[in-house]
């Protein structure tokens, strides 16, 4: 297991309470596990490297949805 360091940060109480609830509902063991998960996903996942949608991309999405009968 990778070495861990202890970092102390202050966060708003309401955010903390929301995170506790979110961790529980989404099936994580505790808030620590949930925060590490979210940060890992946001920072380390190449999936989220942002690409901006162009007008051409929008048209391709519309074509796809039209072909599947979702929109007119």
């Amino acid at each position, binding site marked *: 297991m990778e070495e861990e360091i202890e970092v102390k940060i202050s966060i708003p109480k309401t955010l903390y309470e929301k995170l506790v609830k979110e961790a529980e509902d989404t*099936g994580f063991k505790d808030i620590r596990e949930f925060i590490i998960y979210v940060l890992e996903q946001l920072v380390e996942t190449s999936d989220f490297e942002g690409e901006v949608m162009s007008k051409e991309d929008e048209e391709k999405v519309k074509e796809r949805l039209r072909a599947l009968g979702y929109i007119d």
Partner: protein
Amino acid sequence: MMRVLILGFDALEYELVVKWKLKQLMQKRYGAYEAVKSPKYGKPHTPSAWTTIITGRLPEEHGIDDWWTYGKILDWIRTKPPLVWIKNKRKILWKLGIRPRLHSRKEIKVKTIFDLTPRSIALFIPGYNEPVEPHMKLNEAIKKGINEYIKTIWEVHRWRVNTFLEKLNNDWDLFMVWFDIADLLGHVCMVKCRKELWKAYLDLARLVGIVKKKTPEDTLIIILSDHGMKPMPDGTGDHSEYGFWSINKDLEWFNPKKAVDFYSLIEKALKM
């Protein structure tokens, strides 16, 4: 009798659930199964796929293979020459005041899981009792651009969640509900805006957590998708050939391989 709750998450992708480590969606046992192909579209398609799941029959047998219908006669005429050659038929018919409607229970030719018990609730099921309003809303939103479309997808989703959680308090032995956020955002965001899609998956995981708190422990919770979502070279997402399933109990006999298998598995669970 075991209570059965089916959370139908349209296009929930097996690979993404595993990659994004969403334990709440994986539950105790999970897997992938071969999705049913729509004869009309040549690939898995929502209305025919869900109708196969709730009937255990193929589209050729249950009779649902599209979202919309103009009624038997007009549907038939539209596929024959010379009408088949005319483009934009839907727009022309709309101008003539002829509106399609979504397929519903009365067109399904065979019995469904909802006939297995008198205390069953079906909510938003495509091909069975899906309301038309969300379709109309989304259809209007996309005309204003992708951002408005994504915003509306979330609005519709929140409305579905609230309606569902309200109905969950009713008496039932079998409850099935359908959510389309993973499908709608999957088509848009599978390649270009995955963070938005991840947020949707996380939201579905959160919903499962809320549901687990609200239902008795002996309820069998089945999470199910009709097909997955794969990235396409044109930057969109399209339906993949397999679906996702998971259950909250260690039932070894629950091991679906094909979409037609679910009917008998649900029937067996209801008899336990």
